């Protein structure tokens, strides 16, 4: 237990100090936090519940558009802001900017969660590949539909309110970093708390054998929907922050970016080890580092390098890094190892 407290406080201190130790990397660090949030929330479905969703990008994109729209709409007419690709210029005062952003984030969290609840009842009735394909369609459809809605900029994109002029040049980077870091901590703690309750066991039961769980008297649909709403809540928050950070929302390339973010969140969770608490965190961190490295040093070949990495993961770490560690050092994970049994397994091979 003591060890854990030291570990958590070390991470927390590092998280708070990071933007000051690496001032030039603030944007990358903020994006890292966002990636970790996405991968933790994907893991609730994909890892714990066994429902491989590609639809979480829907909540991320919704959060992004909602946050920006509310932030603008609270003080200025939204339709004029986005008209003609955003020709008119309105300037938020610092107070308006932060107020709007705060309220926007609240909408970005709550609305996607409600939508997850509404669509969950029909979609979560599907299983396996059918569920995956259906959710894949959600993100694509949302991208195309939002690309036609004039009030949020349609194909022209939506320029989010620029950060107000304050004296410090670094303020914008720090603001968005701490926003994303706080949401990350909040997400992690919430998911950790949930994982220590019966709720997680129900999710695992659904993953392992849904019919049996149902037969045991568990209302699986209720749990599936609640699980999805939790993911949607945090995905929406992540999206809202990301929108402000990027400064420009495009329907298919930034908001409902299923091709990149939607796939990355799955990859990261699998890389780290799905179905574990720390797996997505480790996976996202490594993935981000690799990706940035490849982008710098294999210009033009970055996706080839990323592809090789994925092949290596699948061949050498099929259970992800956490799964591999667990196999290697089962004692550390609190599993009782029967030495004789273990040896017998080895000789069997």
């Amino acid at each position, binding site marked *: 237990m003591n060890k854990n407290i030291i570990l958590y406080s070390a991470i927390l201190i590092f998280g708070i100090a990071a933007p000051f130790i690496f001032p030039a990397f603030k944007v990358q660090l903020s994006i890292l936090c966002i990636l970790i949030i996405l991968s933790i929330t994907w893991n609730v479905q994909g890892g714990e519940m066994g429902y491989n969703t590609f639809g979480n990008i829907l909540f991320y994109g919704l959060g992004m558009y909602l946050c920006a729209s509310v932030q603008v709409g609270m003080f200025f007419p939204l339709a004029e802001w986005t008209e003609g690709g955003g020709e008119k210029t309105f300037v938020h005062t610092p107070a308006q900017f932060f107020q709007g952003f705060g309220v926007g984030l609240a909408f970005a969290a709550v609305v996607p969660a409600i939508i997850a609840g509404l669509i969950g009842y029909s979609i979560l009735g599907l299983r396996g590949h059918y569920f995956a394909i259906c959710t894949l369609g959600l993100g694509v459809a949302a991208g195309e539909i939002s*690309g036609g809605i004039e009030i949020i900029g349609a*194909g022209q994109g939506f320029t989010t309110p620029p950060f107000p002029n304050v004296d410090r040049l670094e303020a914008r980077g720090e603001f968005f970093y701490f926003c994303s870091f706080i949401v990350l901590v909040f997400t992690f703690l919430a998911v950790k708390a949930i994982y220590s309750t019966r709720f997680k066991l129900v999710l695992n039961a659904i993953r392992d054998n849904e019919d049996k769980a149902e037969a045991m008297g568990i209302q699986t649909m209720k749990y599936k929907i609640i699980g999805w709403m939790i993911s949607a809540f945090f995905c929406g928050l992540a999206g809202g922050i990301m929108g402000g950070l990027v400064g420009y929302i495009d329907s298919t*390339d930034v908001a409902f970016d299923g091709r990149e973010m939607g796939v990355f969140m799955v990859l990261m969770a699998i890389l780290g080890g799905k179905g574990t608490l720390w797996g997505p965190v480790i996976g996202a961190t490594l993935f981000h580092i690799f990706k940035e490295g490849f982008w710098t040093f294999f210009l033009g070949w970055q996706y080839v390098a990323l592809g090789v990495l994925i092949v290596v993961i699948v061949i050498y770490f099929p259970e992800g890094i956490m799964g591999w560690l667990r196999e290697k050092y089962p004692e550390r994970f609190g599993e009782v190892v029967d030495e004789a049994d273990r040896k017998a397994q080895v000789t069997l091979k």
Partner: protein
Amino acid sequence: MKIKNIIITFVSAIAILFSTSVVSFAKVVGDKIILGAAISLTGKYSSNGVHTQNGYNMAVDRINDMGGIKVGGKTYKFDIIYYDDESNPKRAAQLAERLISQDGVEFMLGPYSSGLTKAIAPVTEKYGVPMVEANGASRSLFTKGYKYLFAVLAPANLYLDVAIETAVELNGGKGVRIAQAFEQDAFSQDVRLGILDAAERTGSKIIIDDKLPKELNDMAATLAKVKAVKPDVLVVSGHTKGALTAIRQIAEMKVDVPMLAMTHCDAAKLSKQHGKNSQYALCASQWHKTLTYKDDFFKDGMTYAADFEKLFGYDPPYQSAESSAALLVFKDAFERANSFDQKKVRDALADTNMQTFYGNIKFAEGGQNVDKPMVLFQVMCDDAGKCENKVVAPLKWASAELIHPIPKWSER
């Protein structure tokens, strides 16, 4: 054991990568002025990204070979750090941040496309980094009050309104019926706004107004409607893919329209790729090699085109020409500012008033180039099937007369 070795190699490789990445560049190292650029080397804009990069590179080599840039009595040479933005605005904004805060770049060149420029401009503006961009034409870029953004090109809404005006003129001053289809992206939608304005001004009617998806490969539905309602003008815009798709399917479906107005015909190498099928297409262009502008570095358009072809093996589209012009603008501004102070360079840029092989360059308050009109060219083929782009408007540079209406497919 094997796995352990692999991991150790991996970890050390990462460590090495990162230790080298910390070595930061600065704006001016020794005799080099380092510019930063995020370019679409992969993704949906990759072909235009390469045109942009070729344009930049050719100008850098030319300026460096011809004596470089003289600032404060010393001679400097240009150098560019490139990153690949994957045609993604999110990535582009991130890379701009990275170029400025990690690589220490103090002067930027623009990316390809309006969408990406819209994503990058707030970042350069925040840091006060002057950016000369050559490929972001969206009108809304120039109404935001950006002080550090300078575009050597005319805004997107001016691309095709000459075409509509010409059509109206040929129709005896009466309004025409327009069918239009535009890709869902910042640039094409801005071209659409220009058409809407022109239609209102000339009393024309828009009878089809379709949106095309990104990653555009099929517009048969729009063309079927066009066949049914027979508009006077068909306008299509969607970067390179839009131009290629339109010509391919118009030829396949034998769609007859009196006037076909497009963008990106030269970037898509239409006349080469589709030969006679692309004949009569009317295209908006920022530049054409036959224009008679001149400068000391590239002499004139024809020489530029010949030199470009020698280097890269194809006829330069206007995207390359305007990109090359961006570096001429930077060189001129550095020499007039006689300093590397960002504010002074910015002020020098704002005062730019010069002629390049690509056209006159003079920036308005918003940063757009106001001293260079758009040109329209038409793809024309001879009997042997060799096709060429010939300027038809404005009349000052016209080397051929506009063929209107386009002959029917059955008569070709």
